[in-house]
């Protein structure tokens, strides 16, 4: 068994669509220093650093080569990890590995995205690539302009998610009104989170239902923003953790599972064997592995709060099911009853989630960070009104085929 590891410090920046007041390293430093202060460690006490964002986002390829000076990295090993939407989750898990292996005692993990540095409208190079990258390549291989526009001209940034929503609706029986409910809940929760991007106090499903249809079944109000922001975590071994902070968030279990490429057509031009993109085998397997490691037998009863990766509303519902929080195809019934509200039986995304704050590289780390805050009791206005013993964080990305699941708890046992 790996040795006990805990999160002892959390730092995040205010997320906005345009943080034109800071450069990329300044933005990253803002989160990194907050995390080190929160953990009561100095940069000298940090043994190693793990960093990551999406490749090519913000218009530059390798910011990791020049951000080190701003976060106290010189003289230490630095590793960059990037796995698409799961980047933040993978960066955090790599931070855990560094400590669990026994090679390092205190590790800083930092993830970020600064979309506004890219001059491309709306999405960035990378997001467009995830959305319709394979189609662009096939267009070049003779797909023809007509076929390309007719398949890729719809949905745009929503890309594969909008088809996934249709699969989920057909399979579970939920309707667009449930997507409105998830979106409204996320905006309301975000209004309680001072770092969140799209904050809308008292937002109702009716408010969301009034927004324009982007691509059926998605409305404008269902789509996540592109945010500038950064997140940082400090991981420490058990002894250090107990000495430095009053309530560490213990990493009880984690897993990362990759499935086969899962976006309509393979990047290499072949077909893919997954018909239903809401199937997400990786999320289910990752959850079961992480729960086993954490000693969780019944996730529906034992988990107190969940932070799911949900840039689009259907994903909160389907991933809650894949993580075993609700029975298959039944999450929308729990949503109707208010069970996933901030004061519900099993709150989902009390921070507002990715729907409200989406600095892509940081988004999956923010899920873990928000779970840590809930366990530590430091989530302030969006703290769930009950004792949090177990929290589960999820990340989703890659070619929609990567999943990370991380279980945090209030005690190491």
């Amino acid at each position: 068994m790996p040795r006990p590891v805990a999160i002892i410090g959390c730092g995040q920046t205010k997320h906005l669509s345009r943080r034109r007041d800071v450069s990329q390293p300044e933005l990253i430093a803002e989160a990194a220093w907050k995390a080190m202060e929160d953990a009561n460690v100095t940069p000298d006490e940090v043994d190693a650093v793990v960093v990551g964002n999406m490749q090519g986002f913000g218009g530059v390829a390798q910011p990791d080569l020049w951000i080190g000076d701003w976060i106290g990295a010189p003289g230490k090993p630095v590793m960059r990890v990037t796995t698409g939407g799961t980047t933040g989750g993978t960066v955090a898990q790599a931070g855990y590995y560094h400590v669990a292996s026994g090679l390092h005692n205190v590790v800083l993990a930092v993830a970020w995205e600064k979309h506004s540095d890219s001059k491309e409208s709306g999405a960035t190079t990378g997001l467009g690539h995830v959305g319709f990258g394979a189609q662009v390549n096939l267009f070049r291989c003779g797909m023809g302009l007509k076929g390309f526009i007719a398949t890729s001209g719809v949905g745009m940034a929503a890309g594969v998610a909008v088809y996934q929503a249709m699969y989920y609706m057909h399979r579970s029986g939920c309707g667009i009104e449930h997507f409105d409910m998830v979106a409204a809940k996320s905006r309301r929760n975000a209004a309680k989170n001072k770092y969140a991007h799209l904050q809308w106090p008292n937002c109702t499903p009716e408010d969301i239902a009034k927004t324009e249809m982007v691509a059926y079944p998605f409305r404008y109000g269902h789509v996540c923003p592109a945010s500038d922001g950064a997140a940082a975590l400090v991981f420490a071994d058990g002894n250090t953790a107990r000495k430095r902070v009053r309530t560490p968030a213990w990493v009880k279990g984690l897993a990362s599972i990759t499935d086969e490429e899962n976006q309509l057509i393979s990047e290499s031009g072949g077909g893919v064997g997954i018909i239903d993109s809401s199937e997400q085998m990786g999320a289910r397997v990752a959850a079961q592995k992480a729960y086993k490691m954490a000693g969780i037998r019944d996730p529906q009863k034992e988990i107190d709060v969940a932070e799911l990766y949900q840039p689009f509303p259907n994903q909160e519902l389907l991933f809650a099911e894949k993580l075993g929080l609700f029975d298959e195809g039944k999450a929308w019934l729990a949503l109707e009853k208010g069970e996933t509200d901030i004061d519900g039986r099993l709150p989902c995304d009390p921070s507002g989630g990715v729907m409200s704050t989406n600095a892509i590289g940081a988004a999956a780390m923010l899920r873990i960070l928000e779970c840590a805050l809930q366990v530590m009791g430091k989530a302030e206005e969006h703290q769930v009104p009950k004792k949090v013993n177990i929290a589960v964080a999820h990340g989703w990305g890659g070619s929609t085929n990567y999943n990370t699941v991380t279980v945090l708890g209030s005690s190491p046992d």
Partner: protein
Amino acid sequence: MPYIKEERPETLSVEGEWAYGAHVYKANTLLDEFCEGLREKKLIGALCMGCGKVIVPPRAICGRCHIRMEGRQVVSDRGTVVSYIVSPPMVKGKYKMLGMDPVELGIVKEGESLVPGHVRFDGSDSPYNLPILNARPEEVRVGMRVKVVWKEDLEGKLSDIEGVEPIRD
């Protein structure tokens, strides 16, 4: 909308550009084989000897079995819609795709919607992303039976498949 707005003042920023996306795309070698099949209105798939799945267009290695997909199987040009989405009615100048306007290009008429779908061809185990043609958006549904609309002059290119249309017989 009643979102809480916050803007930060902009400090020195300079615009620039580099040919970041310029590259040569290398297709899967099996794509040539698939395109040749299209010339004869054949949809060629790869058969996995491990799990029996047929993937269209063919791919080299099964994503779940991790073995070479050495078998070949021609699948039907009829299939079932397994997912679809509907665009808002297209208006000239309002929606652009890589700087191109679908209405201006004559791909869709003003006021009409684009309806791309995922089609599972009979005999295959993979979704194929194609436009659903000659159908009213409100009649499209998951489970609808469709067939390929072939281009008149087949060239052995991906564009030989124009899309799918409902089977009305």
